[in-house]
């Protein structure tokens, strides 16, 4: 068996600079089908940037990014096609302000996958039900709470049947009481076998749901381990120091 066939995201020697600042340093990372990989690290460690380079919302200055074994082009129609395979959930939800919740979920299936409108709407309603906001379908984003908007954003990503979903700090902009409703949806996705790459500060989520934890600092991956091993026994001093600052006693 070729184990490579299972790899959905592969980053090889990826480097990125913001001017003089070296924000991603020789990043090597692969995510297999069905895996939940959580990236943690202090602010400014490059974890969000890493997440955003995967579907080329950020350009890279060196290295390769493969999705399903195919290199991600840097522009054009082919890039748009490949982006459709990679779902993304943002910190600030980024729902379209002028469209209803239902429209937000059906837009890409209709425009990009060319699904008939009826079919797209029926599926969107199922997905909205799955994330628990189907009763809000006719409203516009500003009428929903942050937690509800983020769940819509997850339904929107799911509607494209992506091979993997990237979560870029999905709960960082939420009020505390809304964090769990989003994490619950993410946990249930993970149980259903969705491949996920999650940048987060939610250590409990990492502990409970991740297959693998990646610790980043200063643009480099310092540790990569199972959550049990990482949280019980971090190898680097920096990881130890970081965990001490975030652990609730």
């Amino acid at each position, binding site marked *: 068996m070729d184990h490579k066939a299972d790899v959905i995201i592969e980053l090889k020697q990826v480097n990125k600079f913001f001017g003089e600042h070296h924000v991603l340093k020789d990043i090597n990372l692969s995510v297999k089908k069905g895996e939940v990989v959580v990236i943690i690290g202090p602010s400014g460690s490059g974890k969000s940037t890493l997440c955003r380079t995967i579907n080329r919302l950020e350009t890279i200055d060196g290295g390769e990014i493969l999705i399903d074994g195919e290199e991600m082009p840097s522009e054009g129609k082919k890039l748009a096609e490949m982006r459709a395979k990679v779902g993304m959930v943002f910190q600030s939800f980024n729902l379209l302000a*002028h469209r209803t919740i239902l429209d937000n979920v059906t837009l890409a299936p209709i425009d*990009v996958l060319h699904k008939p409108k009826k079919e797209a709407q029926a599926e969107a309603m199922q997905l909205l039900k799955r994330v628990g906001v189907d009763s809000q379908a006719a409203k516009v984003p500003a*009428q929903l709470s942050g937690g509800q908007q983020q769940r819509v954003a997850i339904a929107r990503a799911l509607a*494209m049947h992506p091979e993997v979903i990237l979560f870029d700090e999905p709960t960082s902009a939420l009020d505390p009481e809304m964090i769990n409703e989003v994490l619950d949806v993410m946990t249930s996705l993970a149980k259903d076998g969705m491949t996920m790459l999650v940048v987060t500060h939610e250590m409990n989520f990492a502990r409970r749901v991740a297959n693998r934890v990646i610790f980043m600092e200063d643009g480099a991956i310092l540790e990569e381990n199972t959550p049990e091993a990482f949280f019980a026994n971090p190898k680097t001093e920096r990881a130890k120091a970081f965990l001490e600052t975030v652990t609730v006693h």
Partner: protein
Amino acid sequence: MSAEELLNQYGNEYVQALFTTWKLTAISFSAAFVIGIIVTVMRVSPIKPLNAAGEFYIQVFRNISGTALLMLVVYALPYINVVLSYFSCVLVVTILIPSAFCSEYIMSGMNTIGRGQFEAARALGLTFMQIIYRIVLPQSLRASVLPLTNLAVSTMLTTALASQVPMKPTDLTGIVSYINTHAVGGVTAFVISAMMYLATALFIGWVGNRIDQKVRILR
């Protein structure tokens, strides 16, 4: 002459002039709106020469006086064998200048759109034109209804340039010169035209407000 005498004698001419002003305004604003959208798309497109062409267009037509442009269209175009009717000459000016402002207003409407929405759309695999058509234009147009209403009013006022050419039938400003060369209308002749401009402007403003309330985006 009193207002009553003026209206008795020149009522028909005033009505014709009012219709001419309305016609010029409607055609100019519609065309300026379409051109304004096209130029805006050029300015934000990823193709550099199109950006430059769009910016050049804006700088030229935003910064030229209506009278100067009208003189060029009337007197210079015939040198390159383009001879337009006076009505069309006026239209060229009252389309080109407002179209530049239209693009500026749409651009400022675009700034109200959260950058994240573009990123989300790109991440979903939408192409540039789909993003323009689905997100950029609907949101920036809905955010710029009030400035565009002002533009419609100022386009109407710009059509007064028609009085500078011997156009038949003439517009609301031209009719005043006409009356004052044939009779003694004095300031009253102006006031009647001014009232008609004012009534039209109030109507445009009312329509603009209604549209704005209907399409305003909840944020």
